[in-house]
């Protein structure tokens, strides 16, 4: 049970005790990691009259979800609209980034041209710039151009989140692809575009899918852009969920239900791209 799977394990007398300790520590961390989600589910299922009087034992109900989704009464927060806004903005941002990013990533991987390094590093630097450095001037510009609180304005600014990810990760996928494959396609009489479409693109398709989903998650989870650049029209779930906490007597059960609904799309997508996550999260700096 050791050495082949875990080379650092060094079985000695007392190994059984160590085994127990390792299991216990692992469980302890994951209790810390999973309890808040568990608690949020609990709170979201509580009826209002038991919200402040109970902890773990209560009469569960889906009323909070019905209210948040607008199926029962008016919660005062157009949550479904926020949810749809998030979908439109995130999908739009990822599509625009793919259209711009795939050819650029391919060019950065295959050609060395004047200015290529500078452009590449400028794109990566978006990832490390304080968001407000760009958003405060954009707030002023958007007010003048009428892009404030619009889908187009949000999709444009979301490129700050999605483009560095897509360009850097796809570049590393194209780099791993040996150029000989495309060259033999060129020798077979394919044009460069055909070689790319029929040979290179299909081979990195899993990478493209994974990075598209990952950048969708990050666009979906973004908070500061919609907080500043939208008000009611194009507001997203992350900002919308927070509004449930306001007011004199915060509706914690509605807040929890809204937060859970807002967290579902990224969680489902994340589980589907686990294999690609390491490279995606580290921008290819660590190949996973």
């Amino acid at each position: 049970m050791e050495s082949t799977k875990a080379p650092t394990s060094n079985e000695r007398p007392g190994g059984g005790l160590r085994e127990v300790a390792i299991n216990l520590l692992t469980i302890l961390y994951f209790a810390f990691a999973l309890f808040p989600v568990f608690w949020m589910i609990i709170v979201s299922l509580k009826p209002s009259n038991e919200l402040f009087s109970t902890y773990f034992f209560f009469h569960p109900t889906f009323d909070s979800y019905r209210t948040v989704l607008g199926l029962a009464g008016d919660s005062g927060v157009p949550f479904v609209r926020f949810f749809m806004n998030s979908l439109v903005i995130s999908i739009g941002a990822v599509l625009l980034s793919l259209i711009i990013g795939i050819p650029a990533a391919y060019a950065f991987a295959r050609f060395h041209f004047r200015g290529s390094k500078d452009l590449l590093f400028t794109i990566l630097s978006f990832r490390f710039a304080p968001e407000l450095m760009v958003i405060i001037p954009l707030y002023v510009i958007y007010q003048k151009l009428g892009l404030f609180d619009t889908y187009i304005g949000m999709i444009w600014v979301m490129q700050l989140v999605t483009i560095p990810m897509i360009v850097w990760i796809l570049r590393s996928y194209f780099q791993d692809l040996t150029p000989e494959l495309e060259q033999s396609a060129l020798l077979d009489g394919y044009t460069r575009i055909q070689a790319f479409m029929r040979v290179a693109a299909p081979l990195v398709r899993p990478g493209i899918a994974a990075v598209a989903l990952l950048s969708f998650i990050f666009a979906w989870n973004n908070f500061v852009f919609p907080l500043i650049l939208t008000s009611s029209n194009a507001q997203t779930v992350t900002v919308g969920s927070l509004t449930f906490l306001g007011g004199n007597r915060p509706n914690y059960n509605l807040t929890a239900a809204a937060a859970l609904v807002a967290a579902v799309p990224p969680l489902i997508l994340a589980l589907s791209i686990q294999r690609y996550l390491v490279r995606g999260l580290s921008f290819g700096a660590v190949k996973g």
Partner: protein
Amino acid sequence: MSATTADDRAPKKVSSGRRALRPYLLTLPALLLTIGILYPFGLGVFYTFFDYSASNPQPGFIGLENYTNMFASSDFWSSALVTFEYAIGTTVIETMLGVAVALLLYRGSLVSGVLEKVLILPLMIAPVIATIMWNLMLQPSIGVVNYLLSPFGLGGIEWTDSPGLALFSMIMIDVWVFTPFVAILALAGMRSLPRDPFEAASVDGAGYWYTFRRLMLPMLWPYILVAVIFRFMDSLKMFDIIYALTQGGPGDSTMVLQVRAYQDAILFTSFSQGLAYMVVLWAIVFGITRILVGVLGRAQARAAGAS
């Protein structure tokens, strides 16, 4: 136009002029996008030399006054201090805890297979949503954390409303969200290490800690550094968790530079003053990234030489 392409041997179907242009055509949309983002950035820097605000739409040039005002105010220095306390606190704890979790999962145990699959979950929830969750748990009177602590004689702790604890609470939330990031990177690093040195050490009877410190840690160092760079940069400019939990309060006890800039520029609409904070934060982040990436390069070279 020095286009040394990877396909010089390819048949010449198109004129060499078009071939030289090709990478530029492919990257043209990305270039336009970059300009579209650099323009507001540059405009932001430009504004800091004016007294631009919503109440003063005809701003005048005031030179470095925004900066001298800022550096002379205690607000700036206290915000800078809180920013660094937050960034260093989160990065140190997340790195140590993340590597420890990775070691536990790498070592393997009965529960690790199942738990590794859910490791990613906190990282994929929006930090704002995570903060809302923790806010529910940390409520002084009805929160479950104080309830669970009450048997130990600890009750009624004001996690978010007392100046001493608010920063601690948000560091805890940051640790909850981002420790999996470090753990995932470290685990990937551990699994990519060569097996032979560890088998040799095991044969020689080297102890667990000795093997970890002398053998694994040096080889793992580049992976850990990548995680540290991402975490430190991100937590220097953390906005979501702090805004969602306290908006900088109570008092100014959790007022980091980004929240201060938001307050000045958006709430008080003095754009120029808010942007001056951001120019300084940008310079800090840029400078530290340069240094850390240099350290990373040397570590990668050393690790490559060692293995």
